[in-house]
């Protein structure tokens, strides 16, 4: 049994996710689409906070909402005139998209609903603290994540170089 406050909190966050994700893919102004994406990402971070993963929520806000959305806004302002509407959808592409989305929703939603009894209540968990997360991330023991951590750092370096090389004016 949850308190009334957490239920209201959940309802606000879930409604934000649903409404803003739909608006992000249906609005015809691309800059607004990026703004709705930002709200969706914030609501996702709120879900992480509600599930006690506070570090993950912070990372979500810092990297996604702070980094990726800014990148999107820069790219949009570089490649399109502000206030420019995208063209109207043809009914054929809209129908294809709706069919794909509804089919995904039905298949996944049915399989989720039929198995949801497995996950009844929210089990107790203490919020994983920074020390634990960092030690696990940099340990080379069994279950340690040093190798993926280093792989991601190499990937980020390659990505920086790649983005500079691709985006450079020739």
């Amino acid at each position, binding site marked *: 049994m*949850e308190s009334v406050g957490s239920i209201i909190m959940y309802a606000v966050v879930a409604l934000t996710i649903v409404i803003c994700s739909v608006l992000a*893919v249906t609005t015809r102004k691309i800059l607004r689409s990026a703004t709705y994406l930002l709200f969706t990402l914030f609501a996702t971070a709120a879900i992480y906070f509600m599930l006690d993963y506070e570090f993950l929520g912070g990372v979500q806000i810092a990297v996604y909402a702070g980094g990726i959305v800014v990148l999107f806004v820069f790219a949009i302002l570089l490649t399109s005139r502000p206030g420019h509407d995208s063209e109207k959808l043809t009914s054929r592409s809209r129908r294809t998209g709706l069919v794909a989305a509804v089919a995904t929703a039905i298949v996944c939603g049915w399989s989720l609903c039929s198995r949801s009894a497995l996950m009844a209540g929210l089990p107790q968990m203490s919020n994983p603290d920074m020390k634990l*997360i960092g030690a*696990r*991330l940099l340990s080379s023991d069994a279950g340690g994540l040093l190798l993926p951590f280093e792989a991601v750092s190499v990937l980020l370096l390659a990505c920086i170089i790649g983005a500079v090389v691709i985006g450079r*004016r020739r």
Partner: protein
Amino acid sequence: MEITALYYLLPALFMFCAGVYGFITRKNMIAMLISLELMLNGVDMNFVIFNRFLFPGSMEGMYFTLFAIGIAAAETAVAIAIIVNLFRSKGNVDVTGLNEMKF
């Protein structure tokens, strides 16, 4: 009322489906990338929710999401570099106009 895992999973599923719809219907490449981010975000939420509800003691889902966020940032940076470069040589970022690899 108790908030079970399903209440968290259904918004994530909805986000994913919105991303699918946007990815198919959009013509602008940046809008497609935004839809892709929505889908990726829905999947990340799934990892976290399943970890929290089924295996609250371990943190595998959290780490997976952590790495996925990092890789998504890298992927977006490279994709936007490609899109800006395409815009420079083609003049627009419409996928329907891009039908040859070598421009």
